[in-house]
């Protein structure tokens, strides 16, 4: 029990930090600026990150108490996700502390919402049960809905929050419906029990319905085409650091949860032979997502919208990693490229949005390429970091983005269960299209004369945020050994998947009783 609580410390610390700063805000002097709450949040998240690092170093832990083990799995897969989410949350918070006052929306709740959103994401990636995953998803989503509309005096922010809320609720409906079908087919929502059931029984029609529902639900969350319509509007209207959190954190969490659900619960051979195999669907979704995202990004005039479409196209590349992955022994995820790519993508996009935050002063509805003109002459360091992020998103060495693409493509080419060569070719062509609009940002920053004096936010923590992100992106791209080792470790999945199944069968799950029969 005590050992389990120690092992759950990343989640517990994040929860306590969220509650603590919520109270700190209301008990603090209301006239005081809220900056210090942001710093407290950063310190708390750093402690949680340290705890995650300790657990990751031990190679993943097994929760001994059955009531914890049925709900959560702390395998290296989950811990890798924890670390990534915490880093993204820390960078987002640092980028926000001086951004909020400049937007006249400095309320202390912002920081606790960021922390609670991270908690939800962490629960999602560590979930061993579909219900736990759903709870995590809701904790995350509700916090993000509020954060999306945080600049409540701006009509764009209201639009962003409403769109995100309605579409998010719609997607959640699909998820719940799929979940109900999973329960109906197997009598359980535990991923391992579901996997065991489908290993013995043919999923049949249930399988098709479940796969369709789940793909729609996750498609919305990862913004895969054709479920991507909300993304540009929401990213544009949200505060820029929050757009970074959505692109870097929410998407990472959704992808890891998707990988876990599909590879663990629906990873069996019978699901491959269904009339609608999820792997085939993701194959075509990946092609659509990459192509549509890239082509629409080319024609954007607004940098935030361009980054939104770029994040859509990146969802396509990450889907290749999912298609190439294969569950081994029920639960393990083969293909470490997926993890490396997620790391590279998350840090590059959160960094890029942190740089974009600099440009927002007194309303930021108009972050066009034109406003970036001459940016490099006034903000050399920020422009340099932006170059690194753009290079990483475009996949140019020596950045992490290049290596991530390389690893995902090699995973895909090495896959034996499916011929993924056409998919990789489409992805390579798309990467080349992407270079055009990423380079456009660099061209405007360095080679155009500034049109007019454009006010920017000068903030040290913001600089630390994108500086750190750029440093990690370059280091992971140039000296990738450690990160590749971590990704490989994360990809080995749960070392103790079998024990988790036995733990699930030990706990006394009350059978559904038909009370109406009385």
């Amino acid at each position, binding site marked *: 029990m005590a050992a389990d609580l120690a092992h759950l410390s990343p989640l517990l610390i994040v929860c306590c930090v969220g*509650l603590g700063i*919520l*109270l700190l805000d*209301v008990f603090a002097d209301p006239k005081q600026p809220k900056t210090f709450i942001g710093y407290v949040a950063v310190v708390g998240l750093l402690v949680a990150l340290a705890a995650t690092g300790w657990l990751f170093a031990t190679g993943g832990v097994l929760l001994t108490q059955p*009531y914890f083990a049925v709900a959560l799995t702390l395998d290296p897969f989950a811990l890798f996700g924890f670390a990534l989410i915490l880093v993204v949350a820390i960078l987002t918070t640092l980028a926000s502390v001086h951004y909020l006052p400049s937007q006249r929306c400095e309320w202390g709740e912002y920081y606790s919402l960021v922390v609670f959103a991270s908690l939800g994401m962490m629960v999602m990636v560590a979930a061993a049960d579909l219900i736990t995953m759903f709870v995590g998803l809701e904790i995350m989503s509700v916090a993000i809905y509020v954060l999306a509309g945080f600049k409540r005096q701006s009509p764009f922010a209201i639009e962003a929050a409403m769109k995100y809320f309605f579409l998010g609720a719609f997607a959640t409906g699909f998820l719940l419906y799929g979940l109900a079908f999973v329960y109906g087919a197997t*009598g359980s929502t535990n991923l391992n029990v579901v996997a065991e059931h489908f290993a013995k029984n043919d999923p049949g029609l249930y399988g098709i319905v479940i796969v369709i529902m789940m793909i729609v639900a996750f498609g919305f969350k990862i913004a895969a085409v054709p479920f991507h319509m909300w993304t540009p509007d929401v990213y544009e209207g949200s505060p820029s650091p929050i757009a970074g959190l959505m692109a870097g954190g929410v998407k990472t969490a959704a992808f890891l949860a998707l990988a876990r659900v599909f590879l663990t619960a629906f990873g069996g051979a019978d699901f491959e032979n269904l009339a609608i195999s999820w792997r085939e669907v993701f194959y075509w979704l990946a092609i659509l997502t990459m192509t549509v995202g890239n082509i629409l990004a080319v024609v954007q005039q607004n940098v935030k919208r361009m980054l939104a479409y770029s994040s859509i196209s990146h969802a396509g590349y990450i889907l290749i990693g999912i298609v190439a992955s294969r569950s081994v022994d029920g639960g393990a995820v083969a293909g470490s490229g997926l993890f490396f790519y997620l790391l590279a993508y998350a840090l590059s996009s959160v960094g890029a949005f942190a740089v974009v935050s600099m440009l927002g002063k007194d309303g930021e509805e108009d972050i066009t390429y034109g406003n970036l003109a001459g940016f490099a002459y006034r903000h050399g360091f920020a422009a340099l970091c932006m170059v690194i992020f753009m290079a990483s998103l475009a996949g140019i060495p020596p950045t992490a983005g290049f290596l991530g693409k390389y690893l995902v493509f090699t995973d895909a080419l090495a896959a034996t269960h499916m011929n993924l060569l056409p998919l990789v070719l489409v992805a390579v062509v798309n990467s080349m299209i992407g270079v055009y609009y990423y380079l456009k940002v660099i061209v405007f920053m360095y080679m155009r004369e500034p049109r007019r004096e454009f006010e920017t936010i000068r903030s040290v923590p913001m600089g630390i945020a994108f500086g750190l992100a750029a440093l990690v992106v370059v280091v992971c791209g140039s000296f990738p050994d450690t990160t590749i080792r971590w990704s490989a470790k994360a990809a080995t999945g749960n070392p103790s998947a079998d024990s988790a199944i036995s733990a699930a069968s030990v706990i006394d799950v009350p059978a*559904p009783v*038909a009370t*109406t*029969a009385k």
Partner: protein
Amino acid sequence: MLDSQIEYIPVLIMLAICSAAIGGMLTLNFLLGPKRKNAIKNAPFESGEKQIHSPKRRFSVKFYLVGIFFIVFDIEAVFLFPWATLYRQWLRDPAFAWVAFGEMFLFLGILSLGLVYVWRRGALEWD
């Protein structure tokens, strides 16, 4: 079909009967009920009571806040009932009893923190 699914069939039958009963009553009423429409019959209070003002007024947004708080703390009670029902069953396992006890009080504790937040934020005051 699993046994657990068969147990839900009565629910489906119940649903069908309820829908048929309600739908039938509404339809029959619509088809058979006598209708003599005039101004007095169409007034909101058929008894002749005069309407004080139109209901299409704007309400203070503060009612919304009160409504939200009501739901939040009502949900708390909703969670307490199944917990209380199952608690005796959980007591049989001494290792789990404390967890079952602690978990609910942790939940109540977090909710009370929420109440503290709401109070300090001034959301409980009408003005």
